[in-house]
């Protein structure tokens, strides 16, 4: 079945540093979303980016469809960015999302 691999598994930064998160997937994705999950469990959609480059605020996502990979760049990290970042794709065109294991980001003051 569809596989989604995220790297790194965890990342520790000092406030102000930039973060680069990676997502690789095993088959063509008709839909790709990056989510932020708070320690309490709430899932917040950050960006939807099945192809190309998208920006919102301090976030930039670049997806190279042919190479089956996506990245999420967080610039000037803040302590409030700490949490788990999840990449999820729909590879079957059914709307069902397959999630990666996530990257746990810790930003220290």
């Amino acid at each position, binding site marked *: 079945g569809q596989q989604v691999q995220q790297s790194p598994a965890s990342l520790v930064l000092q406030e102000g540093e930039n973060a680069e998160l990676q997502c690789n997937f095993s088959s063509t994705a008709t839909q790709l979303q990056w989510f932020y999950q708070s320690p309490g469990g709430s899932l917040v959609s950050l960006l939807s980016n099945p192809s190309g480059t998208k920006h919102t605020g301090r976030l930039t996502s670049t997806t190279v469809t042919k190479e089956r990979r996506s990245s999420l760049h967080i610039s000037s990290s803040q302590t409030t960015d700490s949490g788990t970042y999840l990449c*999820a794709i729909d590879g079957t065109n*059914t709307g*069902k*999302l397959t999630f990666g294991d996530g990257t746990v980001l810790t930003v220290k003051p």
Partner: protein
Amino acid sequence: NSKVIQTPRYLVKGQGQKAKMRCIPEKGHPVVFWYQQNKNNEFKFLINFQNQEVLQQIDMTEKRFSAECPSNSPCSLEIQSSEAGDSALYLCASSPGQNSDYTFGSGTRLLVI
């Protein structure tokens, strides 16, 4: 604050008891999904609806869960007889269409003791 409302936030049940959780999808979103996130943070798709109709569900959901999305009422997911392995975060998501972006709720964290 999420536009998908899930209740209750926490639920504690004994083994064998029913466990029911509810979800109000974002207004105008006819597609609703339920996912289970276990203690290893792995996501499992459970069931999805378009309007009131079930589109897909896994075997476990068909056998042990009761789920519905009635018109003008919250969607619900109910475990008929809770097991320890059902302890997890249950996440509801809604979408304008099957290939559109999802909005997730804050989840219901179920503990079966």
